[in-house]
């Protein structure tokens, strides 16, 4: 049997001298190294985050809770599901997640909803946690800006096993001029609750991704609600005249209103 290594008091980990920079980002910087490799502590920290993100993908959206909270805001809601029969099918069949289940389509067509300028669809996507946490606050922050523009907003449609393009069919059924899809983005290790926003004018089945505008990573640690709402309202205003898609460039960040909001948020954070 070999003798144990003599205790030298020297760690095999090379620590990084720029650890203070970690305050600027949640990225995994200044991790240190053992030789060229990750220290044990970081390997395990990473494994735990991956395990949690895996679990987030498979947690279902609590529709009744969401619909009750919408009720509190005086917002009527409708519930639909996509053609994907299960989570497993949803993950492997995006085509099914983009189309309404026939029963849901029939119920939307029979709902007797008045045509509207803007329709919000809330879809679980790949993180029900993102939707449960951020969809409502974002809608609440956006509504006053849309009312300022004199726009008619339809009932909120809650959709399960939903992909982005599901909103096209929903918008088509309810005769919306524009549809806003709020959907759970794929969970990242450091952001299991990131909300994506997709804006599409003249929604109908078959719209391409180049015909949408996207605002990603809406959450307090990402793009905060007031800024996301400002951006969304800006895109809606611009998109109403020229349509959405790659031709519509987001110019919201150049506006005084945006800068004021940023300043206010920075001030609030102090």
């Amino acid at each position, binding site marked *: 049997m070999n003798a144990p290594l003599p205790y030298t008091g020297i760690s095999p980990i090379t620590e990084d001298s*720029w650890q203070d920079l970690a305050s600027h*980002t949640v*990225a995994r910087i200044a991790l240190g190294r053992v030789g060229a490799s990750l220290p044990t502590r970081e390997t395990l920290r990473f*494994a735990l985050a*991956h395990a949690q993100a895996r679990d987030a993908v498979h947690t279902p959206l609590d529709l009744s809770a969401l619909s009750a909270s919408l009720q509190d805001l005086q917002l009527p809601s409708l519930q639909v599901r996509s053609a994907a029969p299960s989570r497993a099918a949803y993950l492997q069949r995006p085509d099914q997640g983009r189309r309404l289940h026939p029963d849901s389509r029939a119920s939307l067509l029979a709902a007797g909803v008045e045509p509207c300028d803007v329709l919000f669809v809330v879809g679980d996507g790949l993180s029900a946690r993102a939707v449960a946490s951020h969809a409502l606050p974002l809608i609440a922050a956006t509504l006053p800006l849309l009312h300022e523009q004199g726009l008619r907003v339809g009932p909120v449609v809650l959709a399960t096993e939903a992909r982005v393009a599901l909103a096209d069919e929903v918008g088509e059924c309810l005769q919306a001029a524009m549809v806003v899809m709020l959907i759970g983005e*794929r969970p*990242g290790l450091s952001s299991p609750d990131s909300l994506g926003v997709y804006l599409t004018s003249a929604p109908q089945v078959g719209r391409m991704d180049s015909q949408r505008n996207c605002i990603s990573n809406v959450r307090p640690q*990402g*793009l905060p609600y007031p800024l996301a709402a400002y951006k969304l309202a800006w895109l809606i205003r611009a998109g109403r005249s020229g349509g959405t898609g790659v031709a519509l460039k987001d110019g919201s960040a150049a506006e005084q209103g945006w800068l004021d909001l940023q300043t206010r948020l920075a001030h609030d954070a102090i």
Partner: protein
Amino acid sequence: MSYAITIGPRRYRFDDLKTLLARATPLRSGDQLAGIAASSAEERVAAQMCLADVPLLTFLNELLIPYEQDEISRLIIDSHDAHAFAPIRHLTVGGLRDWLLSDAASSSMLASIAPGLTPEMVSAVSKLMRNQDLVWVASKCRVITRFRNTQGLPGHMGVRLQPNHPTDDARGIAAAMLDGLLYGAGDAVIGINPASDSPETIHTMLAMMDEVRQRYAIPTQSCVLTHVTSTLELIRRGAPVDLVFQSIAGTEKANSGFGINLAVLGEAQQAAQQLGRGTVGDNVMYFETGQGSALSANAHWGVDQQTCEVRAYAVARHFSPLLVNTVVGFIGPEYLYNGKQIIRAGLEDHFCGKLLGLPMGCDICYTNHAEADQDDMDSLLTLLGTAGIHFIIGVPGADDIMLGYQSTSFHDALYLRQLLGLKRAPEFEDWLESMAITRAGKLQAQDHQQALLQLMETV
């Protein structure tokens, strides 16, 4: 034309070339989703046997996507180099595999036939190749590109430093950039995926990276990975644009889903070259691809996802890019279900790109809804290192906090360098030595005197 083969009591018939290619493809969820995969393991091998006997000339005569309806089909046929093709024009697909693996297929020979190969020929032969074949033949291919440094030399591998931040925060990006540089990454490019598509935000990022590069005289290039039309607009506004980025796919219809075509890519290439910012070369384009993008845009024409992917390389090749990488596991489990499928696809994409003469890199990655983990990434990383990958991605701790997926880390690149003795682009390696970040290529511990740490003061 139809193809048929009899195996024991069963006769397998394939209606046309694209059906034959689809049935011959190693199993993956995307082809199953498209309803074009082989329905049994035996049918798959039957198709491979049938495919092995197809003459290469067939691919010039039987187009998978009509010439009249797809500008990429036109590009492939119109730019085919008959002279380069001459040495292999008599071969079948199976014969091409044998030739590629033989000693006759030297590095210089492979480079000289590249313009004579079409994406469909290359895709076809890859379907008959095992992982070790894909590794070996790719390792013989040499593709060298230049902008502010020299990439693709034998025994070298680059790293794209990817310092993304979920809100495009300048200090957050700078901190990740600094981390990467101090870990010896960034010779391929310092490339940010912006969260915003606002031209003002992107302009600010470009200016910040350019200032850092100039202040420390870093022989590398920067890029903000935004839509090509936005980059064109930024060039017009005088922003410091080194490389033009664009995601591309293998059919005209899929590219139109991305809002691009060949003309706009050509316009952007010309605009960037006119800036004359490269010091040792003018490869100004950076493309990303990935199996499944054509199907995802419902623009695949019944062609299997790997063949669509290789057709995208014909687009890339037309614009002499500095860098191309497949983002292999990003698209999700509906296209590549698990670690095994991601690893196979990564090796195929790298091989096919290299054989067509591209500076092929790989974003070795997966998402949290795929059946894959770090062990799978370690396997693909090691395999691609031995295959001579042009460059890989470097993200702090392998966790991209903006795009929400796992790629490879700065540590992963160091592991591969020490395992296989892979060097960085020579100009960049010299710079790291001059900054005392490395000594004889080996990373050094840094104290607070390191001049690069003052980088944060500039943002």
